[in-house]
């Protein structure tokens, strides 16, 4: 994202961030959809645990949109990236995974939503558990976690780009690889209290007019509201308010809760009501639906996981500087997209400190031209979880 302001011309200093002398205006807003794009890739479940040689199944759903008609999802090609990128490379994946095929890619399939088995060696490849060294050689450096203490299995999505060149998007599945470099007590505490990530979900999507009147968008294909040309409105999304302290029976398997607790599980609260597999979940048949936007039936693994909160979840992680287990809250980022008109901000959100506020809003100005404007809103938590919602604004006099 590029700001469009000019610095005072009395001086100019180069910094690592931005802003030297005069910064030029550059074309394009991230929030304006002018071509076929992938706006999000959802992994369901959002996080899996790799144990032994298991390869848990995960469903991947891409939010693949275009400026006009919905692009053909058959052009989407998914593959697991199995190559580790060098330390100094900022890219989300190793460069060799940004290709149609190659030795670092394990194809999953094509389509807007499909199921794949996460490679079982993910924690060795992308986590804190590197391969055992050869005799006489020192061990490999473990991968660094992200700011939430997480590790991720990257998924490459190839889609038809502009001018015949392929476009690439990278989604992830969070991997529960345990703690690296922690003491035994910390590992026990973490194992007892950590809960896998749950994808955030949009609870309400509301259009607020200039007179303050709120009109919610309906779910699914009926999500449609009229707006006058040039009218400035406010769009607001909200998500679930997640309890900081787990309460058994609230339907959320929170920190410290488990279906069953053993004698050595300190700080554990047995709460089968919240932490047992969801009702009606038929693991053999693929389980019940847990995705959004009418996603098809979730993976079998989803049935074995207790459910989290679809908002700003509390979680625990190892603070690398303090070397202590700390309680955290997820930050939520909201990305706004439309095929026309102009958003005031491309992205909004709530920080970890603002987690109790479970909503975010953005102003949008309708275009002068009448017609349908497609709007998408994507909510992401900072543990890799994704949820999205679509609506249509009918610009008419």
């Amino acid at each position: 994202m590029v700001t469009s302001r000019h610095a005072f011309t009395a001086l100019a200093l180069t910094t690592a961030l931005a802003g030297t002398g005069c910064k030029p205006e550059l074309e394009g807003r991230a929030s304006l959809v002018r071509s076929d794009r992938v706006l999000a890739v959802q992994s369901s479940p959002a996080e899996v645990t790799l144990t032994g040689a298991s390869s848990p199944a995960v469903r991947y759903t891409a939010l693949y949109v275009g400026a006009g008609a919905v692009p053909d999802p058959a052009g989407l090609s998914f593959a697991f990236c199995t190559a580790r990128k060098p330390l100094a490379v900022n890219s989300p994946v190793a460069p060799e995974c940004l290709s149609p095929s190659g030795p670092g890619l394990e194809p999953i399939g094509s389509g807007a939503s499909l199921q794949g088995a996460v490679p079982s060696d993910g924690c060795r490849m992308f986590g804190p558990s590197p391969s055992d060294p050869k005799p006489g050689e020192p061990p490999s450096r473990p991968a660094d976690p992200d700011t939430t203490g997480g590790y991720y299995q990257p998924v490459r999505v190839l889609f038809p780009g502009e001018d015949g060149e392929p476009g690439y998007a990278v989604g992830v599945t969070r991997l529960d690889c345990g703690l690296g470099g922690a003491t035994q007590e910390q590992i026990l505490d973490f194992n007892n209290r950590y809960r896998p990530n749950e994808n955030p979900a949009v609870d309400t999507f509301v259009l607020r007019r200039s007179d303050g009147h709120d009109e919610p968008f309906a779910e699914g294909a009926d999500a449609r509201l009229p707006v006058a040309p040039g009218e400035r409105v406010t769009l607001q999304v909200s998500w679930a308010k997640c309890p900081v302290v787990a309460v058994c029976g609230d339907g959320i398997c929170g920190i410290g809760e488990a279906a069953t607790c053993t004698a050595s599980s300190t700080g554990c609260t047995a709460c089968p009501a919240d932490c047992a597999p969801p009702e009606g979940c038929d693991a053999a048949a693929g389980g019940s639906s847990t995705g959004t936007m009418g996603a098809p039936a979730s993976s079998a693994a989803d049935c074995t996981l207790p459910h989290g909160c679809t908002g700003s979840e509390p979680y625990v992680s190892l603070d690398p500087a303090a070397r202590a287990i700390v309680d955290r809250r997820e930050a939520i980022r909201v990305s706004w997209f439309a095929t026309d008109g102009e958003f005031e901000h491309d992205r909004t959100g709530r920080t970890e400190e603002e987690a109790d506020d479970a909503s975010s809003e953005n102003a949008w100005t309708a275009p002068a031209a009448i017609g349908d404007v497609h709007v998408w809103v994507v909510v992401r938590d900072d543990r890799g979880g994704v949820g999205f919602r679509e609506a249509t604004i009918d610009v008419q006099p």
Partner: protein
Amino acid sequence: MNFRNRIAAVLAAAAATWGATSAAWAAPPAQASEQKPTGKLTKPPRLLKFFQAPYPESERAKAAVALAISIGADGKVVDATVVDSGGPAFDEAAVLAARQFEFEPAEIDGVPAPVRIQYRYDFVLTEAAPSAAPKAADFGGVVRDRKTGKPLAGVTVGLDAETTKTDENGRFRFEAAEPGTHSVTLSAAEFTPVGTEETLVAGRKYDATYDVDVPTEQPSPEEKVDFEIIVVDTVLEKSIASTSVSAEQGSRVAGTGGDVIKVVENLPGVARSSVGSGALVVWGAGAADTRVYVDDVHIPLLYHEGGFRSVIHSDLVQNVELEPGGYGAAHGRGLGGLVTVGLKPLEADGYHGSVAVDAIDGAASVRGSIGDKIRFAGAVRRSHLDWVLARVSSQDVGDFVPIPKYWDSQLRLAWVPRDGESVEIGSLLSSDRISRSLVESDPADTKRESKATGFERIYVRYQRHLDDGGTVTVTPFVGFDQSRVSNQFGAVSAVLDDQATLYGLRASWSGHPTEALGLTAGIDSEVVTNSLQRTGSVTEPPREGDIRVFGQAPSDKVNADQWRTVIAGLAPFAEADLALAGGRVHVLPGARLEPSVVSTSRRTPTDGDQPAVGLMHEDTHLEPRVAVRWSATDRIRLRAAVGVYHQPPLAEDLSAVFGNPGLAPGKAVHYLAGVEFQLSKPVSVGLTSFYSGQSDLVTRSPLPSPVTAQALVGGGLGRAYGTQILLRHDLSGRFFGWLSYSILRSERTDGGTKDYRPFDFDQTHVFTALASYDLGAGFEVGSRFRYSTGYPRTPVLGAAYDARTDSYEPVFGAHNSSRIPAFYQIDARVSKRFSFGQHTELEVYLDVQNVSNHGNPEEIVYNFDYTKKSYITGLPVLPVIGGKLTW
């Protein structure tokens, strides 16, 4: 002990030994009838001319030869025979010598008459007195009219109380000047007396040139009569490729705001630093590879953050010297160049000071003495740009442009117990703060940065000029360096905190045991202890060689580490200056033994409760260096040098998490050759070609899965080669200036490969032309033109969408295969001096950077998906008005 053959002739005894038997053997005809001859000796012969006999080479004992010498009536020796032998060799020598004698003839009865005398010739061998160590200096020179260059006759030259006058060639001489510091005065009817101070060393010959302004008309009160000194001395020249600029010239260069040390950026071999960066890149070496000294005290940087000002007040600076490579054995621990800031000697000439202010900062200095033996000087400077901008800008500029806040101070106190000896205590302090925030609607896009750096040095400097012409200097110092850099990109924070304590000692002796041999020997030791903390991504801060886009968010894969290091070196060094071929050729062999110890508190990352195990390794390197200087003619001088250099790893690279505790020192070999033509007295042109090959440089591990504690590895290679030209007109009359051009290539390899790619700060062409002219009436103008090739950058071929962070990440092409467009800029300066009395002066100046307001691209920026690119431009026209009051 040297023996010389000498003959101690005893003459007085000769007259007393002639015997009573002497008789005239030829008498003048007597007058028969009038006077009856008595035959008595009325006047003895008197030796008028003695001839010294050569001491027989074969003989080492003393001897005496008795001779009978027949002297004629005309006083000439007719015959000499041996009466008593002293040995055949002595006999022969004595006879030969006696036959050369000439006498005033003897008189018998008042008439010259022949006589025969007996003469004893003594041969005595004595030890030669050892040549005494020279106790005086030979101080001479010429006084000239600066405008015409013609010598001035009849000028009274005073050396303290002693005076002499220049001859018709304008020359003067004090053959036996006392060593030490003297006041030199020049006076004549044509100009106001002027004076300076010279320090003379026993045994040396000085040939000073004094160029005096002789006004053609009565000077107005504003005009100042000054003069220029060029002192030519047979001192041990240590540098082959150095460029030195006096403070007087450096303060007048346009675009430097009167900061003497800023002139270094305009010297050949120095890359143009990007706007807002004070990094010094010399001959393709990294900024951390060039060592900076203030006299003998090592300091970590030359400029404050942002590059606006240097860290030393210009009033304390005598000169600044840049040696881009090939420097002598007295310095080391750097693979790049050497910058030496020479402080002015403290004088006992009353109280003086200055106050200066402009839009950026304010400064003050003072110097004086308590009696003749206690002298002091001090300076302080503080920035106020943030205060100024807050009052003149219409928006909160600090939100977008980090505004540096800095201060520095220097304090010197010297005791001069006698001429040629001094003890100085001093302190050098510097501090920089810079911070900025960019708050965005998306918290993940909010950026905050802050940087706090500073250093402190306390030193003692003892110096003594010895009677034999030598100089002893001892400088112990202690120092503290602080650096804390903190960046926040959304939830991703990066912190690097480094606190260092330094203990240093430099001691050296230099002298001239013989006229043709100069020697310098000494020891250079430094112990640095660091305490470091770092959190964040491995890629923040980025390293040279990292492929990235300006403003790109760092990776959110984070870690943390705390570690301590001790890096110690104790390097004895020695260097000689052999003057051959009558002083036309100087060969300067030198060597430096560089043992170093590197100790780290952790050899592996923290893992649970496992205790920390440290790592220590020792390296010893012999660094031979040799240089040759040949004055082919009086105007042409050729030079060449070769040297080996090592540099210990940086403490921040020794982290077991982010770096490698086992890093070894880097190595460089410098080769250079050049020629200098003295076209006229102030005009010279120099051409230097160089090659620097580097090895064992620290680079990123190329492995996708690096070995534990080896995120960085050694084995990187580097090379830089090129040619630089400097056409220089020294300050003479009203004008000085220079043209410098360098064409060079600097390259690196990355870990695991042998393929070279352009160094991140490579600049193929760097051209600087600057000039300053004194218009008279106190006005002075100056201008500077700079051109440089843009820095290399890695092109972006496309982008991939990171669905986790909703951002696009660039896909890069070949490393550093494109460049930012070239830079060019014109700066101008105009100043006016107002004189109030003999020492008080007010200077008002206008220093305008980028007069033409040319928008120079400084960095490449892209839109959100990297489909469009443009450039951030640097400084627009930047006028800085300032004033300085000096008394």
